């Protein structure tokens, strides 16, 4: 299980390679990148802040939950970046390997969906005319 929070660019290929397994016929990978807009407004860049220790702990808990729900999971990798990211930069990579493909999609989607709900990482969107902490206000 590869769980990592980093302020360096994420090596997507290495993260995916980390879940390769001879018993796995299927790998699913989700890659979250910085979009050039948010609800129609042009985004200049993003700033990610994390509560490091808790973020890594919660990322691991999510991966362990996935392993429990899908016991056939071979390997799991979850890598999240923090700091300042420009358009197109990779913010997060989730990769899983399973014997058959349906479970690889389901487990990978579960991990990214749950990660976005529980892992203490905060994203501030920088626009031409200001900055907004995403989801902070109703």
């Amino acid at each position, binding site marked *: 299980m590869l769980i990592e929070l980093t302020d360096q660019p994420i090596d997507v290929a290495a993260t995916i390679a980390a879940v390769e397994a001879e018993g796995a016929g299927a790998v699913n990978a989700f890659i979250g990148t910085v979009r050039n807009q948010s609800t129609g407004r042009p985004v200049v860049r993003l700033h990610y802040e994390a*509560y490091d220790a808790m973020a890594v702990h*919660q990322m691991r808990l999510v991966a362990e939950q996935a392993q429990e729900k899908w016991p056939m999971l071979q390997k799991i990798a979850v890598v999240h970046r923090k700091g300042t990211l420009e358009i197109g930069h990779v913010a997060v990579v989730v990769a899983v390997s399973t014997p058959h493909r349906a479970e690889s999609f389901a487990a990978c989607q579960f991990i990214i969906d749950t990660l976005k709900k529980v892992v203490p990482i905060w994203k501030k969107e920088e626009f031409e005319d200001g900055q907004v902490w995403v989801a902070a206000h109703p």
Partner: protein
Amino acid sequence: MKLKLSLFGITKEIVGSSELELTAPDTQSVAGLMEQLRTQYPKLRDLTSCAVAVNSEYAADDYQLHERDEIALIPPVSGG
């Protein structure tokens, strides 16, 4: 008792610091702490939500805090 809180994202901006030390009643729950903070920093009331983490776990409203707990405010997360 004395409690030390870590602050992140919007709560860090509202409080104006990444750490906050405060004096709480000797028996203080998570819900009580939040009420104490909302009185001191009314802008916390404007947030969509604000959870409290104790020792890297989400804490229930009725959790009784201890002086050595590692406490953090968790405004709505937005990773990924």
